[in-house]
């Protein structure tokens, strides 16, 4: 069932929900950047805003997380560290959501990663549809869309003065039913209006990029093409850092003078030369060009082969952050034009 949630009541509802966990929502920083941040009360969160600078990835795979601590290099002192705080995410976009659902598969298939699983177990995902995708967005071409919500606990469609709320999972239904007095049942007319918002947003996305067959695109990304863009790559790794679908990590030990140590997991990037460098300086992946090609191959070929969809959610954040203006959207535009010929 769909409900109407007046925008004036959203923060009152969230104030109830934060009794059950820490609220994470879009917040405008002093410099103007908008990011997902933990909010101790909902006053300063943004109910409507442009895409956040980063996805919600840092809350599931932190840039640096402690796996365990130890003292004096002794194995008997190892203490594993888990983050089991319940968190309520508000304002996730479809691109953020899809990446979390993929991380669920990645970190629980074959091997259950306890650090990820414990973080993820106690979360409520409230997704807000995108009425106004920006010029870097192309989630529709990656199989999503402005109102994509598979895996969300609650989906909210922005109707201007109110949201239409669709609780999906038992947890989502519970979060609405428990505070039912904030919600009214949506009429058929309001539901129709929701579809119009979705169509309008979809048109903006299609204007950015026609629908694409990602695998056909990949076949056109040849050495010459990659060589051209690799000259602009600064090998800074920021594309991986902002990518919600990049999960590669490194594991390193840190120790202070008092021999208190910890083993941490940190983000890593296949764009770094040291990513594949071994002892004795052997490196199977020799050039920046090969590293970039490997990145495209992983996202546009191997991901579809393994999971049935690309390793990209079309969020466009890599285009925004790249120092060399290498843009996944531009890459796909260019090769899509080739496919069309």
């Amino acid at each position, binding site marked *: 069932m769909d409900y109407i949630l007046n925008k004036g009541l959203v923060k009152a509802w969230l104030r109830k929900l934060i009794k059950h966990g820490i609220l994470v929502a879009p917040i405008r920083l002093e410099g103007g950047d908008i990011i997902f941040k933990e909010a101790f009360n909902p006053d300063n969160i943004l109910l409507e805003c442009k895409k956040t600078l980063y996805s919600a990835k840092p809350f599931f795979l932190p840039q640096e997380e402690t796996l365990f601590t130890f003292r004096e290099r002794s*194995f008997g002192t190892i203490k*594993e560290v888990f983050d089991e705080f319940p968190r309520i995410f508000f304002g996730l976009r479809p691109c953020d959501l899809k990446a979390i659902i993929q991380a669920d598969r990645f970190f629980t298939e074959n091997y259950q990663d306890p650090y990820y699983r414990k973080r993820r177990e106690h979360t409520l995902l409230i997704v807000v549809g995108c009425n106004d995708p920006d010029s870097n967005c192309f989630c529709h071409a990656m199989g999503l869309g402005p109102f994509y919500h598979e895996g969300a606990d609650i989906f909210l469609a922005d109707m201007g003065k109110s949201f239409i709320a669709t609780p999906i999972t038992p947890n989502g239904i519970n979060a609405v039913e428990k505070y039912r007095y904030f919600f009214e049942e949506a009429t058929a007319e309001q539901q129709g209006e929701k579809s119009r918002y979705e169509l309008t947003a979809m048109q903006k996305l299609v204007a950015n990029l026609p629908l694409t067959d990602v695998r056909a695109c990949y076949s056109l990304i040849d050495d010459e093409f990659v060589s051209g863009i690799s000259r602009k790559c600064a090998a800074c790794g920021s594309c991986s850092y902002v990518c919600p679908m990049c999960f590669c990590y490194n594991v390193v030990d840190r120790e202070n003078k008092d021999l208190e*140590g910890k083993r941490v997991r940190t983000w890593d990037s296949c764009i770094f030369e040291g990513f594949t460098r071994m002892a004795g300086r052997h490196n199977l992946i020799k050039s920046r060009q090969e590293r970039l090609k490997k990145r495209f191959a992983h996202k546009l070929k191997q991901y579809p082969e393994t999971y049935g969809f690309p390793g990209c959610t079309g969020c466009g954040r890599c285009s925004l952050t790249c120092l060399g203006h290498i843009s996944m959207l531009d890459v796909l535009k260019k090769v899509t034009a080739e496919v069309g010929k």
Partner: protein
Amino acid sequence: MNKNELTPKPAVIKNIIDETADTKTFTLVFTDPEEQKRFQYKPAQFVEISVLGVGEAPISITSSPSQQGFLELSIKRVGKLTEVIHQLKPGDEVGIRGPYGNGFPADEVKGFDLLFVAGGIGLAPLRSLINWVMDNRQDYGKVKILYGARTPGDIVFTRELTRWTGEPDTEVLYTVDRGDPQWQGNVGLVTQLLPRIELTPATYTAFICGPPVMIPFVIKDLLALGFKEENIISTLENYMKCGIGKCGHCLLGGKYICMEGPVFRYNEMKELGFGE
């Protein structure tokens, strides 16, 4: 499954053998006897060895599964972690995670004649399989072992090279890139030993392990001799961090080498883009 695969299990160093100036073989036994029993491995699987406060690195197991109750790792001093490991003494503890990787297909090659071609410390994983074969000699045909080291001082497992020479149906040849005044043996690349042994490529499976520069040359020569691609088995040298197909470092051609490898037949290696 609630097990935390990323936390290493402590193991005590029982013995240390100096193989060469920069390589030592460590005998390890898990501190927890239950863990020691649980730890079953295949030849050439690898472990992640840890020194807390320094880090961890993948090292292939050099002992044979036919010898139970301990494991042996031969470690060359090449970086920060291995430097620290080389300073450890018997009685010290290290951390072990694993075993990881697919290991050598010891069962699939039963009945075959076996050719081993090793370079440098690459003999360590092959030694695991060679000793397995020696302990199950009736299951395998002829054995030829070719080994190349940089200098006479770099030859590892000298005691076993001698012992294998005395085994039935076994031929061992070794060579060095550069000799010294006392050296009476072969000088030259390991590939130069190939014409000196009698090989019937149809009955042989070849196992190759060595520095990345060596492997393509050996493969080329074996193909020229008439070896089938699927009867040439090698290990892909690739950096592996987590061992469980997650950290991404070893991803190659869409495959996590730590899970689906590091051992591949040459036809599989080609699919991953090796040797092109």
